[in-house]
Each structure stands twice: as structure tokens, then as C-alpha cells.
């Protein structure tokens, strides 16, 4: 059985998740995941589940041993894509192009009721070729949802190729601006940069939803996986590759401390 998970897609977005959950951005209560006043985080790119599980476990939403004993296995609690049965997971995702609309609906309901919680949605850049993303983008700007923050993991790679080889996301910021969104770009692997823009997102109130385009590297931190489309759904299985990946990630960690 293949138990690898979507590793490279998770490496491109894990710094974003760490900034949100451990940088004092998201207002959440691991001991009470259903807390009504919580900020909502929606992983629209469901194939970032490996990163999400690691962060939720570290945050205390569920025991860390679930990662070892209960991930992508028979009788598991943590599936190959996130689902609502897992504490801390807001929505079932995995099919692309759903998260932004779901978050827009939650945001509109919150506005109607005068509630102050925020909705953060993480989308893949290649996910943005789904038409439903742009339906939601039109809806959110017209409804003035400044309690909605979309974050795009701009790693420039889809499932089998570089995005600009098969579609035209660029000029990406201009497209969002034209749809009525406020746009910020940042380095998706630089915590200072991420925290600056996320702290801004918590205060911005200009009747516009905000999109943060986070420039990232797919497979970040492991030299032979970085920027290589073939790794999208591949598991690390060879002993020497696992050893090298661990060493390189440890070095990354030391540099970031």
C-alpha cells in the first residue's frame, strides 16, 4: 500500500500553515475545535493534507501518534485528503475548486450576523484553472467579503507540468484585481514576509476580499524534489533518498530558527 501522501505539495505550503497556526494569526481552540468564534481555515487544495495533519497534530487537535499509526492506512483516521471527521478540519476537500465558495458562504453568513471571525482559504495555483474559483471570486467581491482571505500556493507546478506551459495564470495579480480583490504577494517560505501580510489581513477592512499570492517552491527543502513535476504524487521509498531528504530538511530547519 502506498502511504506517502502528497509530499511535494505539502512542502510548498507547510510554511504558510505554520505561519497561520503558530504565528498568532488564526484564532482557534484545539481543545474545542467547534468553538463558534474561531477563525476558519479551509484547505481547498486537499492534496496538502500531509502538511495540514502535521500542523494540526502539533497544535494539539489530535494525538501526534495518529500520524504514525493512522495515516492513509486501513482503519485510519487521517485519509489521503482531509475530511470533516478529523478534529480541526473544517471541510472535506480533495476535489478542487470548492473551498473558496464554501469560505465565501461562511463569510457572508458571518457578515449577516455581525460575527468577527475570519476565513482563510488555501488554494493551489493550478487549482485556479477551475471555473468555480472565479465564480466564487466574483461573488466574494460583490458581497464585499473583507473577512475572507484567499492564499494561493504559487508553486508554478500542477500535477504533471509547469502551469504556464499549459495555461495562462499570469498576469495572476492583475486577474484578481480585475475581479475586485485586494492583492498582496509575498515569499511563501519567509516567515517574516508571511506574518507581515497575514497580520495585515487581520486588520484590512476595505470591503474587498484579500488574496495573498505566496511564491513557493514545490518540494521545498529537498533538493532532488524541488521544482520537479514528476514528484506530485510520488512517495519517498528509497532508503538513501529518505536519508538525504531528512538531512536537507534538518538543515532548512536550522537555517530558519
Amino acid at each position: 500500500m502506498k502511504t506517502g501522501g502528497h509530499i511535494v505539495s505539502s512542502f510548498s505550503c507547510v510554511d504558510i500553515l505554520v505561519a497561520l497556526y503558530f504565528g498568532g494569526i488564526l484564532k482557534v481552540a484545539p481543545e474545542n475545535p467547534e468553538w463558534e468564534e474561531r477563525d476558519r481555515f479551509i484547505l481547498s487544495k486537499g492534496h496538502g493534507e500531509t502538511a495540514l495533519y502535521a500542523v494540526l497534530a502539533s497544535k494539539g487537535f489530535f494525538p501526534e501518534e495518529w500520524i504514525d499509526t493512522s495515516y492513509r492506512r486501513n482503519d485510519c483516521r487521517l485519509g489521503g485528503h482531509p475530511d470533516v471527521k478529523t478534529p480541526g478540519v473544517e471541510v472535506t476537500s480533495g476535489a478542487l475548486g470548492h473551498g473558496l465558495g464554501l469560505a465565501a458562504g461562511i463569510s457572508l453568513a458571518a457578515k449577516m450576523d455581525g460575527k468577527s471571525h475570519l476565513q482563510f482559504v488555501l488554494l493551489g495555483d493550478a487549482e485556479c484553472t477551475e471555473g468555480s474559483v472565479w465564480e466564487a471570486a466574483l461573488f466574494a467581491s460583490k458581497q464585499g467579503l473583507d473577512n475572507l482571505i484567499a492564499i494561493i500556493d504559487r508553486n508554478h507546478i500542477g500535477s504533471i507540468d509547469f502551469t504556464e506551459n499549459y495555461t495562462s495564470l499570469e498576469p495572476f495579480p492583475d486577474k484578481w484585481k480585475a475581479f475586485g480583490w485586494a492583492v498582496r504577494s509575498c515569499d511563501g517560505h519567509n516567515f517574516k514576509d508571511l506574518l507581515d501580510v497575514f497580520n495585515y489581513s487581520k486588520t484590512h477592512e476595505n470591503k474587498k476580499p484579500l488574496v495573498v499570492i505566496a511564491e513557493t517552491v514545490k518540494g521545498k527543502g529537498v533538493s532532488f524534489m524541488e521544482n520537479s513535476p514528476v514528484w506530485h504524487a510520488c512517495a519517498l521509498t528509497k532508503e538513501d533518498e529518505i536519508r538525504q531528504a531528512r538531512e536537507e530538511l534538518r538543515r532548512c530547519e536550522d537555517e530558519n530558527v
Partner: protein
Amino acid sequence: MKMSSIDMRDAFIGELYGRARLDKNIIFMSNEYGAPSLDQFRDDLPGQFVNAAISEQNLISTAAGMAMGGKRVYVYSIASFITLRCLEQIKIDLCCMRVPVTIIGVGSCYAYSVDGPTHHATEDISLMRAMANMQIYSPADSNATASLVDVSLNSSDPMYIRLDKGKHPLLYEKNYDVSPGYSVFGDGEDICIVATGTMVHRAIEIGAELRKHSVGTRIIDMYRLKPVSPGNILQAIGRPKKVFTIEEHTIHGGLGSIIAEIMMDANLTIPFRRFAISDDLLYAYGERANLQRCRMLDVDSVVKSILEGEFFRRGVQNVV
């Protein structure tokens, strides 16, 4: 039989309007689709109406999001569009997460008779019943339709209500209790005809014609198509000589399939035939009756077919 004074959708929206005035959590979302009764809702309750534009995928996702945020959400559109265009949103955002949004699809079957196959909702039952946790209602008159407001407000699961257009004869009193999911007309023991939606009226007309030929009929109105209670339906069918289903819906997976499954699961092998739409789309335009004639679903064709009984000799291959 007394004719209803209002369209089915106006019956539903009118009833809902009364509840929405008292409960601001009731939200009505449309994709640029109107109704006379909706004008009053929009004028009086602008904060509870969302025109979500012609974007069915986003309509379902945002409705699900709003329901997660504590709202009681109604999604309103043309039946064919709001079931097919956004099927994956219905599956994941509503059914996988058991979010109690109510979808009101207007224009079941050939209701948009002059508008062609793009507007014909002839696959919706089949697709919606394949969705886990989805409830399906298909009422035959405006009073049964209005009763569904209460059902939907109290539901903890997603629901699809398929409504016909126009005014139809009244079969039920106001505040009719729809909890059984079906009702029975007539007590004939020769044949049983099961129908849904406004085809129940055709079935009653067919029954009246057959009585002239001394064939006793019993008509079942299946206004709830999911969930069904097989035991109750089998009891309602009884032990007639023949069982028929009639529907303006593809023969694949609709009412006929539901009844066939119930009967086969119970090893009930009464001679059986489905009157439904064969496996192609209809490029015919004009009056509803004309389209039904094209499909041999009009009263004369069905009565003739039942009386001649030819289908029992030819076997099922000619039906599909």
C-alpha cells in the same frame, strides 16, 4: 377536480416567505431566476435574499458555507441546471458533509416544453438519488408543495424538491401531512400505477379510462422518492395483476427503477412495465401534451398499451 389557483413554486415561496419574516436565518438564494412570489420576498426581506448570479457551482458551495454558518438556506433555479451543472458540489459540499441545504428545482421533466433538451429535467431523479444522504420530493399539487416547507425547515439532511411549472388540479387539502411519502387513489385490484409529480394527474386520467373497460386501478402518488419505505410501498401496491410506473424521466434510475428495485428486493414478481423516456434526448417543441405524445406517455398511448398488453408478449427489450 378543483384546479389550484397558484403555481407550485409560488405556493412554496409564499409559504416560506411567511416563515422567513419570523426567522432571519432563512436565506433564499437564486441564480438570476425569478417568480412572481419571489418579488415580494426580495422587496420585503432584502437581507435574506441573495442573487448569486448564473453560477450554479458557486451557488451550491456558498449555500453550503452559509448553512455551516448557521443559516437555513434555500437554493432556487431551473431543475436541469441546479442538479447537473453542479453535481460534484452537491455530492461533496452538501451530501458528503450532510449540510441541510434545500434545492428547489423548477421545471421538472418537460415543463419547459418549448425550450428543448437543454431545459428538460429528465435525469434529475436518477442523479439525485445516487447521492448519499439526499432526500428527494416530487409533489403533484400546490398544497403538497406548500407542506414541504415545514419538512425542509426541519430537515438535517440536504433535500431536492423538484417542482413542475404552472397550475395543476388539487389532489390534497391545505396543510396536507406529507410524512408518509406517498398516497393512494382508488381501490381497484386489477392494476396498480405508480407515478410521481404531475404525472400523477395523467395516471389518474389513465385509471379513469381503464375503468370504462372494467379494469380496476389503484394509483400511488410517490411524492417522496428518497428515502422510501419499501414495506409501506409494497403494502400500497398490494397484489394486483400488473404493476406500471409512469414518469416523464429517463428510464434509467428514476421512479420505475425505484419500484422495480423494491419489488425485486422483496421477490415480488408481478408483471411489470415502466412507462418512461427511452434512451435519447427529445428535440421536439410545443405543448407539453405534444411532447408526452412523442414519448407515448399521453393517456391514449398508455391506455392502449395497457389494454393490448403487447409489452408482456414482446418482452422487456422493446421497452428500453
